[in-house]
């Protein structure tokens, strides 16, 4: 991690250099993906020019609430995360996997997956880098213990080619709590370049050889001490100004300890089971692969979709969904993010981006829910399976 006292990796890129950066990315064959305003929302979309960046735009976020407001007209990154992110491109919501027909002795492949573009994510936030790291683990990128057929072709390829130009968060949103997980507001790993925005330009940190090569082609200069100090100060203040906070130390034990806590019933009264939280979560990986055919055609297409654990079809077994109540589905989701993810991947499934809070249509807030599980509930001893059964 770089700090103000070790300047060698830090550069200063004047604001006009953003255009140069964009040109370099395009000429290197990257499809540049970055934030832009779509219907009053900052979305990650393919960008044709830096003019599409939401200059002078800031956001207000709260449970079930998102509004764009006027920000500092000189800043290009004063907003925080919107509903989508790199996941939408590394792990597309809908992806045709295969097209084939049944031959005499084998399945004849007509078409495989489409080509994986070379993505450059411009303005990706530290929490999203943390989420990419989580998905790396889930999809087993380059994990030696994995069986050959268990690697995720598209993700692995897209991930290897992708360039990450992070922007550190100098202003957290009302639903941000990355500081509670240590995943922000400053990027510490997983980026090629990391920018901290000041009015006149950006402090640039290099995180990889690819990043180094790009910096060499940018009109950078040495940052002044005061510029570095200002950047530090902004990031420190951002960490202090997190809109939400989550006590993470005991959260796994808390959710494992009492599966029948009355709070599950209360939150189920509010939960719509609409699946929005899972669709905006940058770590959710559940999917469904479906066969489709067209009338009497012999071609078969297998398509993968993002799936949500809030749907019936997710756990459907002959007689109905295994998790038949909203209570059960919310409990599964929250426990997965904060508890059972540790069992599965030895890490947290939550990175503190706050999307599930903002984009829940009725503002269910896990940072409000967790403290409620600390209060009351059933005694531990009553709750073991064996004593119930015998």
């Amino acid at each position, binding site marked *: 991690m770089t700090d103000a006292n070790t300047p060698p990796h830090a550069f200063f890129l004047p604001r006009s250099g953003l255009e140069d950066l964009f040109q370099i990315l395009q000429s290197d064959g990257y499809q540049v993906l970055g934030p832009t305003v779509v219907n009053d929302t900052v979305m990650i979309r393919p960008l044709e020019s830096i003019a599409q960046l939401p200059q002078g735009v800031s956001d207000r976020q709260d449970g079930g609430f998102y509004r764009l407001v006027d920000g500092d007209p000189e800043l290009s990154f004063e907003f925080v995360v919107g509903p989508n992110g790199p996941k939408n491109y590394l792990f597309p919501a809908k992806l045709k996997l295969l097209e084939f027909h049944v031959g005499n002795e084998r399945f004849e492949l007509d078409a*495989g997956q489409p080509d994986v573009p070379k993505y450059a994510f411009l303005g990706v936030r530290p929490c999203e880098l943390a989420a990419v790291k989580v998905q790396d683990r889930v999809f087993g990128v380059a994990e030696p213990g994995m069986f050959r057929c*268990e690697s995720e072709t598209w993700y692995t390829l897209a991930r290897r080619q992708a360039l990450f130009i992070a922007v550190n968060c100098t202003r957290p949103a009302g639903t941000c709590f990355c500081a509670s997980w240590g995943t922000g507001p400053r990027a510490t790993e997983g980026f090629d370049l990391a920018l901290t925005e000041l009015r006149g330009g950006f402090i640039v940190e290099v995180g990889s050889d690819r990043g180094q090569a790009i910096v060499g082609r940018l009109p950078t200069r040495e940052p002044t001490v005061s510029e570095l100090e200002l950047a530090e100060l902004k990031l420190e203040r951002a960490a202090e100004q997190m809109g939400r906070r989550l006590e993470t130390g005991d959260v796994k034990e808390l959710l494992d300890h009492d599966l029948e806590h009355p709070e599950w019933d209360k939150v189920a009264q509010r939960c719509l089971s609409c699946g929005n939280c899972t669709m905006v979560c940058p770590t959710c990986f559940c999917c469904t*692969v479906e066969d489709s055919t067209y009338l009497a055609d012999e071609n078969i297409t*297998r398509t993968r979709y993002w799936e949500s654990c809030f749907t019936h079809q997710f756990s459907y077994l*002959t007689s109905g969904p295994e998790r038949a109540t909203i209570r*059960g589905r919310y409990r599964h989701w929250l426990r997965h993010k904060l508890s059972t993810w540790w*069992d*599965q991947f030895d890490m947290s499934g939550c990175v503190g981006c706050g999307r599930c809070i903002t984009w829940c249509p009725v503002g269910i807030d896990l940072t409000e829910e967790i403290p409620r599980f600390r209060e009351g509930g059933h005694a531990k001893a009553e709750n073991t399976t064996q004593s119930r*059964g*015998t």
Partner: protein
Amino acid sequence: MPHTLSSSRPEPICGMDTWMPVPARILAIEQENFNTWTFTTRFVAEEIRKIYRFAPGQFNMLYVPGVGEAAFSLSSDPAEPETLAHTVRRVGSVTRALERFKPGGLIGLRGPFGHGWPMELMRDRHVVIVAGGIGIAPLRPVLYTLLHNPDYCKRLVLLYGCRTPADRVYASELEDWENNDAIEVLVTVDNADSEWNGPVGVVTNLLRRIKVDAKNTIVLVCGPKVLNRVAAWSFLQLHVPPDQVFVSLERNMNCGFARCGHCQLGGKFVCSDGPVFRFSDIADIFAKEDI
């Protein structure tokens, strides 16, 4: 130790893509009862047949082209991995589509997936197998393996329960096993017909008819949810240690390798952490609904 007695987890055989099933031909279809058939299949490609191995309790994703996939236990003899049998009960679109197939038909397989039964723990132990209905399918590879190696375990008991005598699957093999000294077979039905001379009632009633050396017994259970629970608890009451009771569970499966998320049971992926679980590993969530 013969290969099939180890619980090692044979690698899945994959097609050209993660989700591309490998073509296999149906060699034979045997009707087990009014809604259950055993499909014997063989991979089309010889090179696949040569490397495909499975352990008792593992499963394949069986694919009907254009219809979809479903998870089915391997129910044939793991010592003969060139022909693979799956016993299938008609419940959904895949199984109904399978019904329309004739020998020679081309289907797809992906697998084998999951962790199977703890074969290595059975050495010199008493093995009690409790199966309900079609739940005997994933246990048949265990039976084959232990009957090939009759000295491997000290005692082998099969307790099998069905709704009616007509619901029994592998009926002729059950009769063979009843006449085999290497195994004690007890079959019970919920509803008897006039021909039935055996016990009537739930399968756990059969426990009264055998004497269990609790500390020295490995229990394998597979059946409907309720049977799994009642059987597991019954053995715990007889003081069989919870780490010697194994249960095979069923969940909605889509990928088979802990990727799609559908089969989660608490923190477990039933497809890869299971489908066979040690009771003590899942005691906290075993009897929970909605989990």
